[in-house]
């Protein structure tokens, strides 16, 4: 199979798959990012809260001293004299004051402080406490490479302020009592490792979700495309030979049922059209074979042994009659084919329809009088836009039928006038009529009301079909009314010609 990228973009299934996957990837990335951001933020918030608490703790510890003492770096710390009450009793001895060293020993971050990494071995929180003039009071757990000068050189505010330094350090700095500078910080290496691991997990889980999602979307896309594939498979099964198959609307999703319905109707129309075509071909073939068979059989019989000249003459007459029948038939088929084809070679011109009708009547006069039938006509001048040759053929055909299927001494009445901007031609006979069962089919090709009679009169079975074709080609309508033994009336309506 040749892999063509353009075929992928033309495939509904691949498009579905692509858009679904893209959507899924976007959703996973977005929600992963949001979640990661939340984790990130809460991690830092926790650290920050811990550091602030630590700074404030140190601040509180320093407040137990008077600010000047702090200012001077506790150098003037001394033990104050005991206070004697007027009644001579002495108050309980005061708690011994702590020495500077003692205090500085106590000045550290208690284990209870809730700073991440507080009790771990790595990322220990550190702190620096100095006097306002940068005299170091105490520092603890400073990470390697930490520059105290840089750090103390930065701004300090009365409230704890948070900054991030290089080497993943996070610090809280504030001014404590007596202008003491308090810095509490913590390396964030562990946090970053944790966040990185979480990020990796997110990416991994997201990828697994994406793979499952793409798989699911593949299944869904296949499921969506399946009815379409089925429909096309069914449509493929249909061919000229077998148009009987139909799509089952009950097995197709409602969105596609409409399409299936349209296809089914199309198939039905095709089926009907093909079977009409087959029927027509079979009929035409049958009609051609019959005279052909006559010619062949008569010729074979004549040649099988020496014959009298009278026998030969009879044989030739029979052959001639058969060939005339074939000629009629071929003419009829050709006329029908022309009517079926496009209008390109169908020349329309302004025609006096009354002239055509009277021409036809005068041509058929001898035939009518031979059969003792009188032709009565009442023609008004009507102009139409039409094809003279085909119209004449149609009029000839209808009047001939009216003469042939009449009774001796009968009458054919031909009237032409204009009603409601329509040319109306009526050809009425008082002949044998057509029974009701045959009436709907008389315009069908090769339909014969009475086969034997039609053969004697030399009909091809196409006459009325051609008439209908001619009328419809002129955007007109042909109708028939008939009562058995009373007569038949054909009425033709054609649009009149207007300037």
């Amino acid at each position, binding site marked *: 199979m040749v892999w063509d990228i353009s075929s992928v973009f033309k495939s509904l299934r691949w498009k579905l798959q692509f858009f679904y996957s893209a959507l899924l990837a976007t959703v996973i990335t977005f929600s992963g990012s949001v979640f990661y951001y939340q984790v990130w933020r809460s991690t830092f918030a926790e650290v920050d809260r811990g550091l602030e608490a630590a700074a404030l703790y140190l601040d509180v510890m320093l407040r137990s001293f008077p600010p000047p003492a702090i200012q001077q770096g506790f150098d003037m710390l001394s033990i104050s004299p005991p206070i004697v009450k007027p009644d001579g009793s002495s108050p309980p001895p005061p708690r011994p004051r702590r020495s500077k060293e003692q205090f500085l020993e106590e000045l550290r971050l208690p284990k209870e402080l809730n700073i991440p990494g507080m009790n771990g071995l790595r990322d220990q929180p550190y702190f620096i406490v100095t006097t306002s003039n940068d005299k170091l009071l105490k520092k603890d757990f400073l990470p390697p490479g930490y520059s105290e000068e840089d750090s103390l050189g930065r701004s300090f505010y009365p409230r704890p302020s948070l900054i991030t330094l290089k080497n993943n350090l996070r610090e809280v700095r504030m001014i404590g009592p007596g202008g003491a500078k308090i810095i509490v910080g913590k390396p964030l290496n562990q946090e970053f490792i944790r966040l990185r691991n979480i990020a990796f997990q997110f990416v991994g889980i997201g990828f697994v979700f994406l793979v499952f999602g793409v798989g699911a979307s593949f299944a869904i896309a296949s499921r969506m495309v399946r009815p379409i594939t089925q429909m096309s498979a069914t449509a493929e099964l249909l061919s000229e030979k077998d148009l009987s198959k139909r799509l089952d609307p009950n097995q197709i999703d409602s969105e596609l049922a409409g399409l299936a319905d349209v296809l089914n109707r199309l198939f039905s129309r095709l089926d009907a059209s093909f079977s009409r075509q087959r029927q027509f071909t079979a009929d035409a073939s*049958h009609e051609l074979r019959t005279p052909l068979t006559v010619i062949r*059989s008569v010729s074979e019989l004549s040649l099988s042994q020496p014959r009298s000249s009278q026998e030969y003459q009879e044989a030739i007459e029979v052959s001639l009659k058969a060939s005339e029948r074939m000629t009629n038939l071929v003419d009829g088929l050709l006329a029908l084919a022309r009517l079926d084809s496009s209008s390109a070679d169908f020349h329309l011109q302004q025609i006096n329809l009354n002239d055509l009708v009277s021409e036809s009547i005068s041509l058929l006069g001898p035939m009518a009088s031979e059969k003792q039938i009188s032709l009565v006509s009442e023609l008004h001048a009507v102009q139409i836009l039409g094809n003279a040759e085909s119209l004449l053929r149609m009029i000839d055909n209808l009047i001939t039928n009216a003469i042939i299927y009449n009774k001796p001494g009968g009458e054919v009445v031909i009237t032409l006038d204009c009603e409601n901007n329509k040319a109306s031609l009526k050809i009425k006979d008082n002949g044998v009529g057509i029974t009701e069962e045959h009436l709907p089919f008389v315009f069908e090709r090769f339909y014969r009301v009475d086969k034997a009679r039609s053969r004697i009169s030399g009909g091809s079975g196409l006459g009325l079909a051609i008439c209908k074709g001619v009328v419809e080609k002129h955007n007109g309508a042909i109708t028939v009314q008939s009562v058995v033994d009373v007569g038949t009336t054909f009425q033709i309506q054609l649009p009149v010609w207007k300037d």
Partner: protein
Amino acid sequence: MRILVVEDEPDLLRTIAKALREKGYAVDEATNGSEGLSYAAISRYDAIVLDMMMPVMDGAQFLGSFRKLYSTPILILSARDTVANRVNGLNLGADDYLTKPFAMPELFARLQALIRRSLGTSENITTIRGVTINFGSRLVNVGSRSVDLTAKEFSILEMLVLKKNRVVTRTEIYEHVYDANEDSMSNLVDVHISNIRKKIEEDIIETRRGLGYIISV
């Protein structure tokens, strides 16, 4: 042998009938199915040639009615040439199907084969006591000498040979050799038989007095 031809095309009907008569068959002509049924009710035929598309009663209807009563071999002669048409025709009870236009010799051969088979033999050439009868070419030889029989004479001999070891009555022979168009006397059969005997010079036909004739093997 007597054959009924049912065909609505008058020229074709006449031609087929004439050709078969020249081959020595007795032929009756019907122009539609119901006419054919009337003929079948009157006479017994050795074979029927049947057109399918006919007015009044078509070939299918004819087959439907006819097959309930008789087993006469029927050959359909039709312009409908699709496989479905042929299968349908044979399923309706016909024994063979020939499409139009057809070759006369083929029609003869198929009819001959149908008649032969219906009488229980499938050979085309039979030899009885040195007399060789070829049903296909319709020639008779005695040893190496060919015998010149008329169509009627051959027809009678053919019938007796095909129904060998059975007594065939004069009426049967008459019915199978003369069709409804002819108006001959039944003793003509005796004349034909005696002519056949003279020409063959080999007395293979026995007379069963008061019954008819027989060729026994």
